[in-house]
């Protein structure tokens, strides 16, 4: 997408759980799969040959089913889990070679984390929780409280600072979790299924809040989810994990249009494609065509809106504009074709 230097690079990362991971790693490198490894050596293959670049200012979403290694992967970013082999480079420095003090420094200043189960300190007030990162860093009480208060207000929890976490609802607790992470002023924010424990409406709110904050803050966010809708909503870059390996990564719209694995096809077959796909992913170049348009569409409109505009007429075409300039043509015929999940194998026809 862009030529920016990655903020975090994961290079050839392996993680194997068990008493003798080094020997098991040998087997894995020789091609043994997760099930076979478990059966033959009683080791669990957590991650295998992971290569991911996380670009600054983007939301990188890591998606996969339960047990695919998402939590294991995100915990390598701040080394809550030690890798069996491989590198984690943050701003070009190998985190794996850090000693304890340097690692603590990284966790205090560069990376913050939001957890699925909130993981707030139950014996501290909301304000104290929000300012926790500052206090850990050794800043004094008033500085920590000021930062905590600022971010609590920002996530919409002004007025609750004196309460204890158990006095808040799940959604509010996660707002505290978010404020706590933001108050650390770290460039990188790790979010492990941060919204999965919330009910759908609250979850939508939180997603909106995150996107709104991200517009101003431009943080580097690594977001884990098992929910494709959430992934498509948030992701600038989508990484799909299966059994500890990356099966596909890239621009979410591209993955949706060109899944390269039956696993991903399964994933994408159930979503409302008209709502998720955007005009920019389906349009064609202008090629000098200037007439015969039934209207104007924005590159970021979703297909649902176009169907509405065309009134369902597949013969129409639309002029696509970005910031007021023509950038392409959308043929309704292409749009309709894009609504049917693609099958890279080409074998079976439309389901």
């Amino acid at each position: 997408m862009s030529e920016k230097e990655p903020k975090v690079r994961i290079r050839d990362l392996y993680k194997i759980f068990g008493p003798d991971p080094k020997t098991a790693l040998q087997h894995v490198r020789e091609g043994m799969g997760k099930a076979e490894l478990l059966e033959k050596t009683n080791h669990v293959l957590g991650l295998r040959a992971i290569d991911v670049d996380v670009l600054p200012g983007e939301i990188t979403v890591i998606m996969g089913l339960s047990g695919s290694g998402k939590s294991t992967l995100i915990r390598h970013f701040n080394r809550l889990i030690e890798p069996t082999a491989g590198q984690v480079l943050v701003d070009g420095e190998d985190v794996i070679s850090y000693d304890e003090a340097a690692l603590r420094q990284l966790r205090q200043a560069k990376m913050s984390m939001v957890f699925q189960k909130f993981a707030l300190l139950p014996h501290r007030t909301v304000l104290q929780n929000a300012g926790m990162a500052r206090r850990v860093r050794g800043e004094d009480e008033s500085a920590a409280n000021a930062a905590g208060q600022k971010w609590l207000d920002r996530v919409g929890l002004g007025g609750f600072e004196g309460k204890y976490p158990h006095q808040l609802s799940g959604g509010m607790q996660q707002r505290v979790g978010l404020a706590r992470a933001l108050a650390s002023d770290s460039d990188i924010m790790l979010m492990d299924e941060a919204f999965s424990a919330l009910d759908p409406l609250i979850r939508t709110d939180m997603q909106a809040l995150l996107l709104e904050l991200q517009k101003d803050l431009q943080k580097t966010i690594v977001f884990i989810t098992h929910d494709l809708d959430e992934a498509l909503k948030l992701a600038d870059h989508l990484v799909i994990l299966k059994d500890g390996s990356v099966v596909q990564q890239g621009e979410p719209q591209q993955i949706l249009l060109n899944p390269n694995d039956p696993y991903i096809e399964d994933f994408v077959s159930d979503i409302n494609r008209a709502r998720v796909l955007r005009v920019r992913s389906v349009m064609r170049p202008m090629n000098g065509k200037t007439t015969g348009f039934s209207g104007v569409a924005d590159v970021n409109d979703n297909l649902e809106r176009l169907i509405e505009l065309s009134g369902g007429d597949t013969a129409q075409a639309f002029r696509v504009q970005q910031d007021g300039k023509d950038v392409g043509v959308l043929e309704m015929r292409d749009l309709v074709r894009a609504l049917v999940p693609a099958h890279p194998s080409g074998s079976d026809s439309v389901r």
Partner: protein
Amino acid sequence: MAFYDGLFDALGLRTWCDAAESDGPMSMAQLLQQSSGQTAEQVAAAGTPLLETPFPSLDALAEACPAIIRTRDMTTGVEEAFLAVKDPLKVVLGPVTQPLSWALDGTMDLFEALPWFLLIPILLLITWYATRSIALVVFVGLAFAFMGFIDHYLYAVQTLSIIFVCTIISVVLGVPIGILMSRSNTVQRIAIPILDMLQTLPTFVYLIPLIFLFSVTESKLYGIAIILYAIVPVIRLTDLGIRLVDRDVIEAADAFGMTSRQKLLGVQIPLALPNIMAGVNQTIMMSLAMVVIASLVSAPGLGVLVLRGIRNLELGVGLVSGFCIVLLAILLDRVTKAALNRVNAAQTH
């Protein structure tokens, strides 16, 4: 001759056995034989029926082979071994435990020196701060008024002062030990059998080696016995409490870069506090149980009265002092449990 003669003959040990023949003290069996008026020859002539085959114990074997020691010699040996290490042990343990005597004596002097019209209000104030419960304050007040009225006040205060000191020392030593256990599985594996032993050992057995090590006039003698017995729950529950702290919260603490010290003081101990407090409650109750038994080794307090009741068959003295102990037990239990509930309430609803 004796039953196992044949065995030693067969093994060709006869000369070794007889070389050591001596006329040491007679064994219990020989004494019995003598008093029954039979000579050894008569018994031997009758022969031992197979059904009465004696267990090959030290005594039975020694009868056939004088070179083997008898059980009585063995116990004497243990005693001598103990006495031999006693003096060096005393050189080390004496000074180390001396502060305990000072603490016990000093606190007792202080408690006794405070006039009742000061001490009782102080206790009531402590109760109020710990529990915030009017009912408990009234109960404590009534209990002390009752004990004062029947002239048991001084004894109760002595008992209380011993419990006070022993509990504080148990907590001061036990919490760090519990923390160590929670941090290392190896330490835990080593400590658990020791704690099990301390807890299952009959309480009287504590006193036996201690009597040899320290003189009965020293207060640390009963202090050590009480602490050894009562420290167990606070260690166990500190360990358990810290291990039970929510994994997710610990992970969050790590993810934000807390040092292990920040984590211990800011997260683990506060979150383990309800369990630690439950341990303190049990420690107090076990101190009370032990302080009564420790009156056998000159621990002052209500136990002395119970002991007098038993020794002199003064039924009334024993029963009334027993009732006072029950009263103290209920009072200590209620007050610490109420304090514990306040800690719990502050953390979760």
